[in-house]
């Protein structure tokens, strides 16, 4: 096939502008294909990374309504439950009301058992356990404000007043943690009692519980058991596997999948029609040239192969450029949209793209191929 390269290249450069424009149109289409599918796949893979063995327990009426701390004993007693941990948000900001911080009062005894992905120096964790006003800060949050171990940081709560009458809660940073997984690494953890003992309202309540189950296979069953046990209490629960909960959070953005499919479908119908037809037309114009090749003794199928190779070069070239731009453009695009996640484009999209590019080349060569076979050398040379 390599020996046909000069002919193929000559054919491509016959009308350079047309070749470039066709390639550019294909590149634009595959850029969209790559970006949109990358986006979608990113969400899917993000959800997949969430834990199979962890359940999130919230108030059944609304996750924002909170649950009583007293539930913790009931939860621990449920069959299949291994560890239980809880958290209560401070609803706080740092210095300016617009600088919200996700700060939660947590259960120090069980935090690391339930969130085993937490990467924290045990020495710092010990220091945390020993001090009532201690805080552990996620590395992204620490980086954002330049906080370090040893700093004394005041956070202002929008909701709760401290014993001194102000809304300011002061913490001592004793450790900085990272997370191995999709959970956010910009959160701020402190001791629940520090908040609960000082506040007047909502005493003895938590935002929700996180539960680790003995057997991940039984996660759904344990979730059901929890909800059934709490059904008749004053605050019934809704328990979801963490993966399900994460998926739900993302789906609240809107029906991403439908739109990606709709747009990609529309884009593809469009380029197939336009570029396929442009290539077909180009082939048709060159029937006399192909006839010349036939007059040299090239068989029809070789001539068809040459035509196909031309189409293939354009479509594969265009798709490579388009996908290449998508790969480089996806992260900046996501950053522009405010997302800090870095999502690599999964390999099956590249495979799909190659398949589509080849199909495009095939489809646009089919009709001209028939002409090439039927072209009589005499007629063709005469320009008919």
């Amino acid at each position, binding site marked *: 096939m390599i020996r046909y390269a000069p002919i193929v290249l000559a054919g491509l450069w016959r009308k350079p*502008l*047309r070749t470039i*424009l*066709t390639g*550019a*149109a294909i590149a*634009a*289409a595959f*850029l*969209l294909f790559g*970006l*949109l599918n990358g986006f979608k796949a990113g969400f899917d893979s993000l959800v997949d990374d969430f834990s199979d063995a962890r359940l999130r327990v919230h108030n*059944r*009426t*609304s*996750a*924002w*309504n909170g649950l009583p701390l007293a539930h913790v004993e009931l939860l621990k007693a449920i069959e299949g439950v291994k560890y239980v941990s809880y958290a209560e948000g401070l*609803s706080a*900001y740092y210095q300016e*009301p*617009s600088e*919200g911080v996700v700060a939660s009062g947590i259960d120090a005894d069980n935090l690391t058992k339930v969130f085993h992905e937490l990467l924290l120096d045990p020495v710092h964790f010990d220091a945390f356990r020993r001090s009532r006003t201690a805080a552990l800060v996620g590395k992204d949050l620490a980086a954002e404000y330049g906080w370090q171990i040893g700093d004394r940081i005041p956070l*202002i709560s*929008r*909701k709760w007043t401290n014993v001194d009458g102000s*809304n300011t809660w002061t913490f001592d940073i004793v450790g900085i943690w990272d997370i191995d997984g999709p959970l956010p690494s910009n959160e701020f953890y402190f001791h629940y009692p520090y908040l609960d003992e000082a506040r007047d309202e909502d005493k003895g309540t938590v935002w929700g519980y996180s539960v680790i189950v003995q057997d991940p296979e039984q996660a759904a069953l344990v979730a059901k058991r929890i909800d059934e046990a709490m059904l008749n209490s*004053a*605050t019934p629960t*809704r328990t979801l596997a963490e993966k399900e909960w994460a998926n*739900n*959070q993302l*789906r*609240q*953005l*809107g*029906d991403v999948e439908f739109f990606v499919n*709709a*747009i990609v479908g*529309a*884009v593809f*119908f*469009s*380029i197939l*029609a*336009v*570029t396929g*037809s*442009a290539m077909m*037309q*180009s082939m048709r114009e060159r029937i006399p040239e192909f006839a010349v090749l036939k007059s040299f003794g090239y068989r029809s199928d070789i001539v068809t192969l040459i035509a196909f190779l031309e189409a293939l070069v354009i479509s594969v070239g265009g798709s490579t450029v388009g996908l290449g731009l998508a790969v480089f453009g996806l992260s900046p*695009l996501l950053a*522009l*949209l*405010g997302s800090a996640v870095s999502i690599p484009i999964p390999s099956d999209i590249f495979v799909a793209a190659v398949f589509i590019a080849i199909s495009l080349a095939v489809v646009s060569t089919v009709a001209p191929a028939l002409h090439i076979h039927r072209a009589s050398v005499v007629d063709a040379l005469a320009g008919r």
Partner: protein
Amino acid sequence: MFRQIWLITSANLKAIPQRLGPAIVMAIGVGTAVGVLTALMAMASGLANTLIRTGNPDRVVVMSKDAGYESASVLDQDHVLALAQAPGVARIRDGIPALSRDVIANVDLEARTGVLSGVVVRGISPEGFAIRPEIKLSHGRMMRSGLHEMIIGRATQLQFDGVEVGDQVHLDDNRWLIVGVFTSGDTHESGFITDADTLLSVYGRTVVNSVVVKLEHSDAFDTLSDALMDHAALAFEVVRESDYYLRLSGRMSMLGDIADVVGSIMALGALFCTLNVMYSAVSARDVEIATLRAIGFGAPGILASIVIESLLIAVAGAALGAGAAWAIFNGDVATMGFGRSSITYQFEIKYDVLSTALLWSCIIGFFGALFPAIRAVRTPITSVLRPL
């Protein structure tokens, strides 16, 4: 010159049936790009309009200092009293201050799509309806105070099943009856409305989340704001309602940004396709064009005719594309998470969206033909006609 343009253009257009293939292809290219653009704009526009319509500049949302959001805000009786006496507050009949004590509760419901979504239950004072004339009852009746009754926004019914008049909604220990449906054209329609005091008593609370105040007139904002901020004992946060919702809508701009990026790439693709088709079209007619020039038709006339032909095909394609988008998407309902609740909005393909679509198609049609046309009139006539 116009006569020349008219002559050449009409001749070209009459000849289109012979060159239907390329014309259709170009129309498809432009049509698809414009159709997708229209759908995306309809989505962003529907969402933005729903947000913009929420929040009247003549109303003010008062919260506790630095709360930022109504759900994080807590105002007690002292605050409400101070507000009732503050300057700049409008009066309804009998000197009653035009303010509504708003209490926010939340409920998670499973949408038709299967997504668990947060819905806001907003308890308002009876005066709340007077200051929000956009809230209109469309079915059923108003709730009676003291009873666990509420009215539902029309948009909420589009998002969830089992929320018709007569159905009940579980809020913690209590079942609340839906007694009516209201429309307001804004984000409140994606939630429930009930009586503030009833909601307070059910939750055993005495403090409200926010107070929504109607200003005497739009300029009275500063008067009210200054009076409250200078208050000796109490602390407030005072925001014009329109600004409040504008601030909340920050995340919504993401949708508009996505629409812009996708739309631009599609338009670029359509432009390449158009350029391709028009270059081919022009080169197929090179003898014709050279002949016209040889017999005396001026370059402007030829340029214009090519551009006009391209514009007409592009607009025709765009009309089909936008028409298809309208047929498929107009009136469709979509939901987007919005803080602790979600907004259910409709795709709106109206004048503004359609005119932008038309503009895009004209731009694509124009630039898609300009360069080929320029090349056509600059090629030396002799080099085209000589081979004949």
